[in-house]
């Protein structure tokens, strides 16, 4: 398969960072507004899917840097581990731990295991969707 449409390719160069940024935005605000790890992850996956469609598997893999399966594994690990710290305070697993930071520029920032969990979710969603899509695209290429 030769390079696909130039317009699409160049648009995706522009759309990719936009979508990725948007996905992180959705991830971080999810606790307060519609969004969250899933939605963010799905948008990010869509971004890379777009890249996959307008370029090829190799380019998509390069954008991702990490093998999606590893991303998957680490995301799952993070999500599971985010529930563990509570035990050290003699609380049940997955009891949320909040850490409030006073940052000079940004004001009060709340960090929490809940956010870690959501980030884990985000990673898993990206990892899963892309594992599937890239594998399918690989197979498709192999056929040509």
């Amino acid at each position, binding site marked *: *398969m030769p390079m*696909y449409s130039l317009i*699409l390719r160049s648009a995706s160069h522009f759309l990719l960072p*936009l*979508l990725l940024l*948007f996905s992180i935005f*959705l991830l971080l605000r999810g606790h307060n*507004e*519609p*969004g969250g790890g899933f*939605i963010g992850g799905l*948008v990010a996956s*869509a971004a890379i*899917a*777009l890249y996959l*469609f*307008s370029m090829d598997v190799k380019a998509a893999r390069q954008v991702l840097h990490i093998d999606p399966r590893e991303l998957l594994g680490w995301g799952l690990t993070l999500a599971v581990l985010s529930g563990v710290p509570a035990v050290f305070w003699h609380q049940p697993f997955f009891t949320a731990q909040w850490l409030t930071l006073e940052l000079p520029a940004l004001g009060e920032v709340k960090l929490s295991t809940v956010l870690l969990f959501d980030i884990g979710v985000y990673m898993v969603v990206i990892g899963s969707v892309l594992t599937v899509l890239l594998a399918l695209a690989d197979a*498709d290429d192999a056929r040509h």
Partner: protein
Amino acid sequence: MLEYTLMTAYAILSLALVLAFIRLVIGPSLPDRVVALELIASLMIGFIAIYTLSSKATAFLDVAMVLALTAFLAAVGFARLLEKGAHRDAD
């Protein structure tokens, strides 16, 4: 006043939805259907916008935002497939 406007707008969009759907049904080619599908996505944005106006819950705009940004991916997918030679039975 605004209430009637919104009712009317809903009605108009509903009509548009029906028309777009008819194109989806009659085709005849796959790209035609995909175009209809794209339009349905746009109409959804319209619905959501009007719904935001009537409910005053701006959270729904987020849905429209995601829709605007990702709905075309389906079209890209379809197109990519068509280019790869599925046209033989794409009707």
